[in-house]
């Protein structure tokens, strides 16, 4: 017994070192797995509060580009509104609470942006107190941004599309062939679309949108255009580089999408059903 205690006392620094190393390794492994509740994330009062304070100052510097984006989105919505075949008066009022309400949109603000890392995680300024939950899609007026991961009481982290664990269902706009959107870590404006079959006719500048196959995003959210494409090593699937519509380096106001039928869909698709 005495020997064990002596051994521990003599090597206490080494033991402490190994212990701390293992703890941080565990945190790291956890952070690289999708949907594991993580102890160390920025969606807490301390880092969230500090980022919110600094963002309240730095957001003034992007006011102009944000205003431009707002005007652009208003223009687009006005075009949609005034070019409808049936005028807005003709829509009959439907007396039901659940009819046709598939998605809830909540507005949020990005208070920590990140795009230069291999695994980028953003922070938004709403959390459980605004009914935000894991696995809600995040978009802005120009396209997709990411998926909500960890949620604190008034902040939430968002796994950006610029993250190695991000896998988003996407498809071509003019056909229904779908694939998986991922990122190779090189350029924050270009993401990769995989698993598109060789038989599909592709052209450069074809538009890529979100597919309806996942419950995260509604079908048809803009992603980007095809920049170039090659056949992969097995020669039966395409590797496609997609130029994002969104400028991921300049993000401010975003929308968080809640799919109201998500639980139902997940239950129906669950393998044990």
């Amino acid at each position, binding site marked *: 017994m005495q020997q064990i205690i002596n051994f521990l006392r003599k090597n206490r620094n080494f033991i402490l070192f190994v212990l701390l190393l293992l703890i941080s390794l565990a945190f790291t492994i956890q952070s690289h797995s999708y949907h594991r509740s993580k102890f*160390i994330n920025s969606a807490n009062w301390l880092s969230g509060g*500090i980022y919110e304070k600094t963002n309240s100052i730095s957001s003034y510097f992007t006011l102009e580009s944000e205003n431009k984006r707002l005007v652009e989105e208003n223009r687009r919505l006005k075009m949609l509104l005034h070019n409808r075949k049936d005028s807005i008066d003709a829509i009959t009022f439907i007396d039901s609470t659940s009819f046709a309400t598939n998605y809830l949109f909540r507005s949020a603000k990005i208070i920590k942006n990140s795009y230069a890392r291999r*695994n980028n995680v953003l922070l938004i300024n709403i959390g459980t107190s605004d009914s935000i939950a894991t696995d809600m899609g995040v978009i802005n007026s120009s396209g997709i941004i990411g998926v909500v991961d960890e949620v604190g009481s008034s902040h939430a982290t968002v796994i950006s599309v610029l993250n190695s664990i991000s896998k988003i269902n996407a498809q071509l706009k003019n056909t229904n062939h779908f694939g998986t959107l991922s990122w190779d870590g090189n350029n924050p404006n270009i993401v990769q679309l995989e698993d598109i079959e060789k038989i599909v006719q592709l052209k450069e500048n074809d538009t890529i949108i979100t597919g309806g196959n996942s419950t995260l995003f509604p079908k048809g959210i803009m992603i980007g255009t095809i920049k170039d494409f090659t056949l992969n090593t097995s020669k039966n699937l395409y590797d496609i580089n997609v130029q994002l519509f969104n400028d991921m380096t300049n993000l401010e106001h975003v929308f968080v999408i809640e799919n109201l039928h998500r639980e139902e869909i997940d239950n129906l698709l669950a393998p044990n059903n």
Partner: protein
Amino acid sequence: MGPTIFWNSVRFIIAVLAQVLICNHINFLGYIDPLVYIYFILLFPFNANRSLFLVLAFLLGLTVDMFSDTGGAHAFASVIIAYIRPFVLRFAFGISYEHQSVKLENTAFGQRMVYVVILTFIHHFFFFLLEIFNISNILIILRNTLFFSIFTILITTLSIFLFSRKNS
């Protein structure tokens, strides 16, 4: 002992804030940020309690991790350089550092650079190893280690020059 604890706490907070609020957003050439918080580990008093030093390095890394959502990569790398610091000190400054209270500002430029360069490279290598966490991307890990280290070393050396009190 009082003022030492106070000044090191202040340094700790400044190191974290400088890292997460300023240096994480520099993005030189699109992606290079200096990891200046290791300045705290490099400058921590050489004769301090080693267990305390390890725990502080761990907490420092973990705080930076919390702000930058990197899991435990900063903590891991910080603990490693905190543990090997005495060996690097002995290598860089010779056996003498243990007997007399060597201060980093008073050492010769070459020795100081050896010390800073070795620890920075080791820290950055382990950081990117864990951040990227995919050994097939070893080239990206090595490239990032090289570029980020150069930038960090540049910033730390400049600030040692800037903030050192000239005795001679």
